């Protein structure tokens, strides 16, 4: 068990979860006092001792599923010479018989035909029967996934194959119809629909688990863990996030901005005290007979910076711009003023959208629909956007203004107009360029970061939420 635990912790660390030595010791002690045969107990124990952040739990669970798949738990039991339970034997047999299964009607180690399987799943879902569902999932994987040992394919491929053959939409429809009542308004309908969705999700999770377990058997935990490892939300590459990851990012952003705001507000309040408050000091001195023993200070009033955000919202970097705008506006109380501009090849001010909105996310969503950012062909043109900003808003820049430019500086071979940025730099307190591309890609192809860089305080690589948060925190 200790070896397994060590490997498991190694995997968690590789995935970015900080696990200290003392936590390792705690976990080792904890597993001594629990019933190892109880898998969910093992899971809860390890989660409690090793993971200290709710956001890290999904990553933990993914790793746990791989390392402590039902079968390896059994081998742990064997190791400890405990009575191994033979409950899983049946599916063990099924997986051994998984044939090539090209499409429907082929292979399949058991006697269920395609129709019988569909019927079985339908009934299992309808009755919420977990045991039957598990059996059905295992059958479905044997039948449709077409798993072959040693094939270097990710689990998603098998999952896709299985799900495609199961025709889940049809299944969902059937479930919906069988559960339908004549009465009940839209609310009842919505609830029924959600219930069906939840159950289908359950089935998907079951199938995913089944596939993962077979892969573990085939390749071993460590190799598989490496291939299914998911980065923590704050380490996801914003520019290349897929839809699921994007949803994760959205979820992570809200608490992140809240925490950042709290931290900055505290920092501001706790900063060094201001000048001596004479009035207050004299009043205090009355209790010591007029001798000012106890000096009183005015509360500090550090100047808040003024922020101008100029964001490229063309396709390639749009999501990065959205996140940054969201974050900056979420902590706008830390700045005296925040003005936002978005551009593709034309430039438009969107500050008003944020002022009306309670939630920055709403405003960000409206940018796409309402901002007028395309003047010509809809390919980003940094030169033109900067000129347009300079013509209309340069007069508003003062020595208290900080300019943030967000974008990859891929100018589609248009003119750079770096001299405009030079003037902006001269007028403002500071100019920062946040580039969502990895540093190694800068200045390759049509990226012209180098031409702008001399007029920026810094050009910063900003690929993940962590980097973004660190920068914005520094700014305030």
């Amino acid at each position, binding site marked *: 068990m200790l070896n397994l635990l060590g490997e498991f912790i190694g995997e968690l660390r590789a995935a970015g979860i900080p696990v200290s030595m003392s936590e390792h010791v705690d976990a080792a002690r904890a597993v001594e006092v629990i019933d190892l045969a109880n898998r969910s107990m093992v899971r809860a124990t390890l989660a409690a*001792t090793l993971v200290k952040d709710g956001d890290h739990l999904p990553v933990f669970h993914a790793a746990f599923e791989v390392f402590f798949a039902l079968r390896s738990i059994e081998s742990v039991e064997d190791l400890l010479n405990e009575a191994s339970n033979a409950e899983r034997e049946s599916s063990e047999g099924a997986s051994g018989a998984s044939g090539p299964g090209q499409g429907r009607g082929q292979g399949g180690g058991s006697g269920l035909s395609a129709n019988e399987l569909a019927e079985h799943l339908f009934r299992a879902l309808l009755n919420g029967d977990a045991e039957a569902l598990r059996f059905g999932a295992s059958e479905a994987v044997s039948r449709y996934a077409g798993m072959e040992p040693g094939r270097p394919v990710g689990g998603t491929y098998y999952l896709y194959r299985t799900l495609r053959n199961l025709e889940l939409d049809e299944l969902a429809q059937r479930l919906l119809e069988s559960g339908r009542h004549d009465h009940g308004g839209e609310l009842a309908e919505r*609830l029924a629909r959600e219930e069906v969705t939840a159950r289908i999700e359950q089935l998907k999770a079951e199938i995913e688990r089944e596939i993962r377990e077979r892969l573990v058997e085939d390749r071993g935990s460590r190799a598989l863990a490496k291939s299914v490892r998911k980065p923590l939300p704050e380490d996801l590459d914003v520019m290349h996030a897929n839809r699921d990851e994007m949803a994760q990012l959205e979820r992570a952003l809200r608490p992140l901005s809240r925490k950042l705001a709290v931290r900055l507000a505290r920092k501001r309040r706790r900063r060094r005290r201001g000048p001596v408050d004479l009035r207050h000091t004299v009043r205090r001195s009355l209790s010591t007979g007029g001798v000012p023993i106890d000096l009183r200070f005015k509360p500090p009033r550090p100047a808040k910076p003024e922020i101008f955000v100029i964001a490229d919202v063309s396709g390639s970097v749009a999501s990065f711009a959205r996140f940054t705008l969201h974050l900056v506006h979420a902590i706008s109380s830390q700045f005296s003023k925040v003005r936002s501009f978005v551009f593709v090849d034309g430039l438009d001010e969107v500050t008003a959208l944020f002022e009306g909105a309670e939630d920055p996310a709403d405003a960000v969503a409206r940018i796409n629909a309402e901002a007028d950012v395309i003047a010509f062909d809809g390919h980003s043109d940094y030169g033109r956007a900067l000129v347009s900003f300079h013509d209309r808003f340069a007069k508003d820049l003062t020595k208290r203004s900080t300019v943030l430019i967000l974008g990859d500086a891929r100018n589609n071979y248009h003119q750079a107009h770096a001299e405009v940025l030079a003037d902006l730099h001269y007028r403002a307190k500071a100019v920062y360029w946040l580039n969502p591309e990895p540093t190694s890609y800068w200045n390759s192809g049509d990226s012209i970061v180098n031409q702008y860089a001399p007029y920026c305080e810094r050009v910063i690589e900003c690929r993940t939420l962590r980097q973004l948060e660190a920068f914005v925190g520094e700014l305030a």
Partner: protein
Amino acid sequence: MSALDPREELAQRLGLARVPPPRFESPAEVQKLLAENDYLSDESIASVTYLADRLAKPVLIEGPAGTGKTALARAVADSVGARLIRLQCYEGLDESKALYEWNYRKQLLRIQAGRPEGAGTEEWHHLEEDIFAEEFMLTRPLLEAISATDPVVLLIDEVDRVELETEALMLEILSEYQVSIPELGTIRAKQIPMVFLTSNNTRELSEALKRRCLYLYVGYPSIERERDIILSRVPGISSALAEQIAAVVRSLRTIDLKKARTLVVLGREEIGDEDAAATLHILLKYQSDIERATKELFGRSRPVA
């Protein structure tokens, strides 16, 4: 694997005469005891509570508001028959409010009452020793929990509200179950108290604090558990209705709202659209949320009474 049982080890360190027996036999027993005290736990809650007792470690509970973090500590206290000592954290909480404070008025009185004419240095030393005794100390929750002789459960509520510096105050208690007072020396716990900390995650807690605790994330309950909670908390409610309420609440949570709470009391047998619309304002606390939910759930906007 000949390591000492964590409880034995701690008892030795604290110098206890005997090792207090574990409070719970198994997670299943935790679950049962909590249920008897009207707290429906799930497997992970029960497991972590059991571990906290067996390993003699504090538990840090995190999760959205209103998911029963504080209630868990209370239920645990009730189920083991212990006194609950609660420290409510807030910004600006300091040593004198959390740990102990010298009762200087009483000390002053003692000095004045005991001042003989022309007392010498010896007299003064005696007095000095005297006024820094436990008698002149006001114990605050943390010290109270440590020095209690009866069974106690210590709850440090909303620990994320205090500053980082104050958090450090708690570290000694959390890992060693002792408090060091410069004038008195170290006060060790006379038993092994159970300690719960809750956090709403408004800021990142320090690594040092997290490392000393077991971590429990309490999320929104599953639909079945939510139904059972409603059943146990609202007497006389039919199980079909409870199920429906739970389903509505789950549905609300999928909509992106500022705040969604549980618990409704309805004198009906079934929820229709009208009832649901009329009671949304019990569940939701922001007007903008109510409008949004109405639109999502009923497919049209409708003013809410």
